[in-house]
């Protein structure tokens, strides 16, 4: 065994000095390494003198009191937060669910002439409106005109928009709001 690996090896053994056969053999033949080994034994013995006084009962009691105080506070905060999270979590989730249900349960779909879905919204007042701007269609105008004719006794009930006379159109424009479509 060489001196360098020997020294590296035994310096790692400081604190639990136990030479193996090769190391024991080496210090028999190498005075320098023997001196190094003895200096380590002396260092080990000196370092073993450094034993701080153990934790006293009073010191531990003081640490324990502070620890209990802090762990209690942490525990209460943690459980308090958990309780809040559970209670408020349930409440908030319920509100969101209610809003979601009330919004989307009123949505209904109808299909247009091409079979494409059209969304209608039924408001809380029960009035039905289309989402898009073209909500006044021919059927609506027909009904409006028929209502107008029945109330005012003008023309026949077979009249449709395209068949109104100029006089009737002027009358309708002046007396009924049809969104300027006539």
């Amino acid at each position, binding site marked *: 065994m060489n001196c360098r690996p020997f020294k590296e090896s035994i310096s790692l053994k*400081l604190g*639990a000095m136990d030479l193996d056969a090769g190391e024991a053999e080496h210090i028999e033949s190498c005075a320098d390494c023997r001196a190094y080994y003895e200096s380590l034994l002396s*260092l080990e013995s*000196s370092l073993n003198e*450094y034993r*701080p006084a153990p*934790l006293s009962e009073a010191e531990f009691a003081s*640490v324990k009191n502070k620890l209990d105080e*802090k762990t209690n506070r*942490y525990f209460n905060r943690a459980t308090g937060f958990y309780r809040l999270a559970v209670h408020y979590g349930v409440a908030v989730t319920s509100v969101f669910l209610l809003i979601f249900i009330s919004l989307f349960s009123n949505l209904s779909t109808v299909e247009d002439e091409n079979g494409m879905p059209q969304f209608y919204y039924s408001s809380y007042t029960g009035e039905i409106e289309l989402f898009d701007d073209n909500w006044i269609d021919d059927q609506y105008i027909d009904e409006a005109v028929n209502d107008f004719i029945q109330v005012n006794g003008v023309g026949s009930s077979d009249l449709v928009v395209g068949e109104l006379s100029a006089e009737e159109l002027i009358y309708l424009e002046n007396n009924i709001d049809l969104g300027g479509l006539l």
Partner: protein
Amino acid sequence: MDREEQALVSLAKAGDRRAFDKLVARYKDRMFALTYRMTGDREEALDLLQETFLSAFKAMRGFREEASFSSWMYRIAANKSINYIKRRKLMSYIPPGSWLKDEPSYEMEDAAGRNELKIQIQKSVKELPPKQRLVFNLRFYEQLSFVEIAKILDKSESTVKTNYQKAVEKLQKKLEGFR
């Protein structure tokens, strides 16, 4: 980890305060010895001891039992100590004689030379760089294996060994005239 300790750990993880208290009682001396040797100040060591157990309490549920409970505790205490040293920058400024204040372990009746050696040892250990000091304390005084220390510090075994060798070298030089 013996069976009793394993049972205590399982109970403490489930929130059993009594089980946690028993673990505290089991580990108080070892953790105190480490924090004291790292700080060299009894009051600071007591504060770090309390912080170590508080952190353990908070993290108990997350302890995955991949390492032993003692390694886990040592890791917490080691981190607390290193952070303390960084915070206080003890290494850059040590007021003369401050490392001796209120040291009750040195009895007045000790022979002067013997007392001086103890003082010098404490001073020399405290003057080691924090990581070397930590490795040295865990190995020499706590008698942990290099493998275990490597796990605690999340370093390679060779790094830990190098730290230990350097610490031994420095202590040899510093204590040469006192032995």
